[in-house]
């Protein structure tokens, strides 16, 4: 219910800058994911937006109103922490009710609102328990309920699923999405996991070392990563990045990377012979690809990783190492041969010098 704008934000701890002239926008009524590796500044950004941390420079606007100097309690925001931050000595009801108690909301209304939120999150029958009597997933629901009961303008999530195990994380994702779609409101969700962004968010902001690498609707960012970092990070498993060179073959410009060839004739950008480029291949677009123009090649298996019901096979080909994502369990032994391929239109081509995307 609020649009957020951040302008030239600076924040440093000691002499180390976390943000230096950081600007971004968060759409009204959207689910925005802040995606980045650990240490990128995700948590710090949320804390700055929530008002827990005070910026060293720059401005933060909520709906055009400058809130930079407004304390957290007057920003009407809520935050869900990775560690849940529940009070172990209080029952679930009192945990959820705590923000209302601070605001002196009448008892009857408190009871009604807590019940409503708890029912929505499926923890309505756990209100009389203590947090230690709940499972991790249930505790996280309590933490989310506490954030939602406030009816805040903005809800921040700081890696809320990181402390949960794999299976619960998957079911929480779909459930959260359902709840937030029903509830509405502006949600900012920090996570290191690209799957979170892909499965739940409408917008994604990829940040790295305090820099906004790319921001936009999830599908746009996924399909057109601005640079190698976004391509590599916003992909599960990470995108394969292979070095290559532009060569001229039969009069046309071709990218040659470890003897894998991609035609560059449709590139509008000024590319000339000898330019150094990077070929980006998504692991999920390598296995069992058919078609007339598919570039097929045979890799030698290095190792097979089975994750849940999926497999990631690491192969090498002509000095290049690639990960191949197989959407089923598929065990191969080191040394086995695996025929893979890609459609040239699925390949991402980046400039090596600055990592920027040239074409996909």
């Amino acid at each position: 219910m609020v649009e957020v704008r951040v302008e030239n934000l600076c924040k440093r701890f000691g002499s180390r800058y976390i943000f230096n002239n950081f600007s971004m926008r968060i759409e009204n009524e959207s689910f925005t994911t802040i995606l980045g590796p650990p240490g990128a500044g995700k948590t710090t950004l949320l804390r700055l937006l929530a008002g827990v941390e005070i910026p060293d420079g720059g401005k933060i606007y909520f709906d055009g109103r400058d809130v930079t100097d407004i304390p957290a309690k007057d920003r009407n925001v809520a935050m869900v922490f990775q560690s849940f931050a529940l009070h172990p000595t209080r029952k679930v009801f009192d945990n959820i009710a705590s923000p209302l108690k601070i605001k002196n909301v009448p008892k009857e209304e408190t009871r009604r609102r807590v019940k409503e939120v708890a029912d929505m999150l499926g923890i309505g029958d756990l209100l009389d328990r203590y947090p230690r009597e709940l499972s991790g997933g249930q505790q996280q629901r309590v933490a989310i309920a506490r954030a939602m009961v406030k009816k805040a303008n903005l809800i921040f999530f700081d890696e809320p699923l990181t402390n949960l195990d794999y299976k619960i994380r998957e079911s929480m994702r779909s459930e959260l999405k359902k709840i937030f779609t029903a509830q509405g409101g502006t949600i900012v969700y920090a996570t290191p996991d690209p799957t979170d962004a892909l499965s739940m968010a409408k917008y994604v902001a990829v940040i790295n070392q305090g820099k906004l690498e790319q921001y936009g609707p999830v599908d746009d960012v996924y399909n057109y990563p601005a640079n190698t970092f976004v391509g590599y990070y916003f992909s599960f498993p990470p995108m394969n990045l292979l070095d290559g060179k532009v060569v001229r073959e039969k009069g046309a410009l071709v990218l040659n990377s470890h003897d894998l060839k991609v035609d560059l004739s449709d590139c509008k950008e000024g590319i000339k012979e000898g330019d150094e480029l990077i070929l980006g291949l998504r692991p999920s677009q390598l296995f069992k690809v058919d078609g007339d123009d598919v570039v097929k090649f045979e890799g030698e298996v290095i190792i097979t990783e089975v994750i849940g019901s999926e497999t990631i096979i690491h192969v090498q080909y002509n000095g290049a190492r690639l990960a191949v994502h197989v959407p089923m369990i598929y065990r191969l032994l080191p040394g086995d041969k695996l025929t893979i391929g890609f459609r040239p239109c699925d390949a991402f081509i980046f400039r090596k010098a600055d990592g920027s995307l040239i074409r996909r």
Partner: protein
Amino acid sequence: MKKISFRSKTLFLALIPMIYLYGLVIYPFASVIYYSFFSYDIGGTPVFNGVGNYIQLFTDPQFYRTLGLTLSYSILAVGAEFLFGIGLAYLLVHISRGRSVATSILILPLVMTPAVAGIIWRIMFDAGFGHVNFYLSLIGIPGQKWLIRPTEAFISTVIVDVWQWTPFVTLVTFAGLTTLPVELVESAYIDGASEFRTFKDILLPRIRALLYIILFLRVIDTLKIFDTVYTMTGGGPGTATTYMSIFNYLNLMTFYHIGYGCTIAAFFIVLMNVVVTVLSKKAGAALFAA
């Protein structure tokens, strides 16, 4: 030679703590109980007296006075130590600079030998040339007869205990607070709780078990207070600062009433056991809840 089985070896080893327990704890304890039933002054022979000593104890007005004084001393001192100690811990949490300097200063009273502290405070509280009266006179407050009048002497001993042990409460509370996750404070802050309320309603309950342990240690320590007070007032003036341990000591070592002294000690042991049991149960329950 017959081989000693593993079992007998283990049993033999298990004897060592038993010998320790018997020799150093049970034997002296049993002797105290034993002699508490005898009329026995130094130089004389012990004569069985039945519960005579106990009747004497429970009809001795000095005993009730001592008991009352000891309890008042304990409640006042521990209460003040908690109030100031937790208050200082609150300040320590909230200052961003000079925390290590502050803690170094706080440690100073703690490292002083209590007997020496008592002697120094005796000099400081001296009505004629003491520092306390000198500084009071600087701000226009007339000198008090600190160790001369009963009430003032009692207050002096409480002040010294508070001076010496408040830092203990502060440091342990502060240490406990620093182990709490910062998210707790932040989530309360976002929800609009004031700093004081966050401290009182969220942080302190989280270290409840620790607070009970501090309370436990301080109550036991104050109930058996001896060294500081003995070197400072010797239990006087009159009997104004004759707390349990001093009362016991005087009867045993000054008046040489061995039997009666043992009766006081026996009662004291029972009293301390009750206090320890109650407080440790509380602390245990709090630990479990946390």
